[in-house]
């Protein structure tokens, strides 16, 4: 075992996959230096042809990624901020998502769209999104949300090897988080949730950075309430079975997700839980999400995005 931090884990995943497969390359703005570190240092090892600093053009960066993927390569498009999915909406949500389907499965587009996501540094309404709902709303795309260094590396390798376009959002607040990484190679298959903490009274499903809010809440409440924390790790494909299994055990659910509450991830998972485990619910499903407003920045940010106290309140409201 070795200790790596979150961005190092992602970096190592890139390096290993680029080593393994010549068709893998990275394209995006400033990827050779990498402001969020994930592609830092790779150019020295793989050359500028495989770590391509591209123009400030989300349209062609994402569009060429799709094109190159169709033409037999496995590009990784670093959009820098996950928010910029919107700038390349046509390329990602219409072209990438629909390529395989619209062409009768003749030509697929294996590529990865990476961007740093989430709030916590007051970066404001266009640099703090976790645009999960958008991705889920366009079937054809896959979505990965790693919450630990171990998950980050294993999931990135899986994303690169996947034959579909995968959106991979990593979180700003987790950059420095350290964790144990096995020496030997490992891949975490997409569609496999991780029970981050076992419990019996309440199931808390949390994504990305919210996993840590959930764990903090569980720890704080440990003497009164036994909380089980489930990290889905990928939302498409979603490991609904692990979630349902937990709900059947605890009969109470809180879903914590940093995307907007309305029409969001929590609403989708909550509905699936109701459909598949209705008779096991002793209480309504509760969600803790970003408020239905643009994400405020600076000192106001904390009023829009979820925090650990809200998770604690939510858990307590169910245990009566």
């Amino acid at each position, binding site marked *: 075992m070795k200790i790596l931090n979150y961005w190092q884990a992602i970096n190592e995943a890139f390096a290993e996959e680029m080593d393994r497969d010549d068709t893998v390359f990275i394209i995006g703005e400033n990827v050779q230096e990498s402001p969020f570190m994930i592609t830092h240092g790779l150019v020295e090892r793989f050359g500028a042809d495989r770590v391509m600093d591209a123009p400030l053009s989300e349209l062609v960066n994402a569009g060429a990624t799709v094109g190159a993927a169709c033409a037999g390569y496995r590009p990784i498009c670093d959009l820098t901020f996950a928010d910029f999915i919107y700038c390349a909406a046509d*390329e990602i949500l219409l072209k990438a998502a629909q390529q395989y389907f619209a062409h*009768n499965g*003749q030509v697929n587009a294996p590529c990865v769209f990476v961007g740093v996501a989430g709030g916590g540094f007051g970066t404001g309404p266009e640099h703090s999104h976790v645009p999960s709902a958008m991705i889920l709303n366009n079937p054809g795309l896959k979505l990965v949300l790693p919450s630990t260094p171990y998950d980050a590396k294993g999931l990135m390798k899986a994303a690169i090897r996947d034959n579909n376009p995968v959106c991979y959002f990593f979180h700003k607040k987790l950059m420095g988080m350290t964790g144990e990484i096995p020496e030997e190679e490992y891949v975490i298959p997409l569609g496999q949730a991780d029970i981050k903490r076992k419990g019996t009274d309440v199931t808390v499903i949390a994504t990305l950075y919210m996993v840590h809010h959930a764990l903090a809440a569980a720890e704080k409440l440990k003497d009164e309430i036994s909380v089980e924390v489930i990290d889905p790790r990928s939302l498409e494909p979603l490991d609904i079975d692990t979630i349902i299994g937990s709900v059947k055990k605890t009969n109470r659910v809180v879903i914590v997700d940093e995307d907007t509450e309305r029409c969001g991830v929590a609403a989708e998972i909550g509905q699936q839980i109701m459909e598949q485990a209705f008779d096991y619910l002793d209480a309504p499903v509760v969600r803790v999400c970003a408020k239905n407003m643009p994400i405020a920045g600076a000192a106001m940010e904390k009023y829009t995005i979820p925090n650990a106290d809200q998770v604690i309140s939510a858990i307590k409201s169910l245990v009566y």
Partner: protein
Amino acid sequence: MPELTKDQKVALYRGLVRARKYDELNVRMASEGKLRTFYHSAQGHEAIGVGACSVLRKDDYLYMHIRGHGVPYAIGKGIDPKPCVAEHLGKATGWGGGITGVHMVDKENGVLGVGGTIGSCFVLSAGFALAAKKRGKGQVCACFTGDGGMQRGQAHEAMNLAACWKLPVVWVVENNLMSWFTPFCDTCAVKDIAQMAKAYDMPGVIVDGMDVFAVREAVEKAVKRARKGEGPSLIECKTYRFRPHSEGRPDVCHYKQRSQEEIDKWKERDPLKLCRDRLLAEGILNSDLIDGIERESAAETVEAEKFAVESPYPDPSRLHEIVYAP
């Protein structure tokens, strides 16, 4: 530029006739309500697809323009256009498997797919060309679009990247002076699209789009340049569409009926007519050959229609299989 052989010239003429026949078939079926989706007639444009694609290798990538729904380009590149008709009827034998009724794809022949938003061809083609460059086998990508496509941001970002990185792509813009109901002159800052190439420091050429030989020559030059690794080119083909933007739509400019005088004037330079006249003059064509080509092409489209009508619809379960690649 090496002179074309007699056969090549006849082939070009045959290509134009076939393209026109298929177009007439699609127009007729549209008017009969048989088409599943919409149809954008290429009558008047045939010289561009047929001429340009005749220079492409089998492994070159081809991004087709929506005009004629891919038929002129397929004919030019030597791809059987029959599946196009089947696709229009939504049948499983269509080249998109009948899934959308309009998408063109033929992986073996370098057609990796199309997008439904005009202008997206630019960024996707840039991607094809990027892959081609990396692969280093001399592949190029020919990307066809209309004057409207040039107005979209995608065009400019892609041209910028392609020119900067010297991607092997040839942008062929079919300027027929209209987008839907809006004339080019009222929506474009420059008079000739070829001028835009200057902004990206790449060659911009104006070509007579009604002349199949002129188109072929210009594209051949650009393809050679791209294959050598010298980067992209922008070829503006001046052309005209004889029919409305898409079948069933009014044929207006802004809101007034398009001038019949103008249409007739352009029809005098119908690509088929130009080509036929020239080859007749050169003694390559004669009335027997012309009739023969006419009959064969007509028979081909009858066969294509029969094939399409008799083909089955896709199995709905197929839909679930193609959301994600395994």
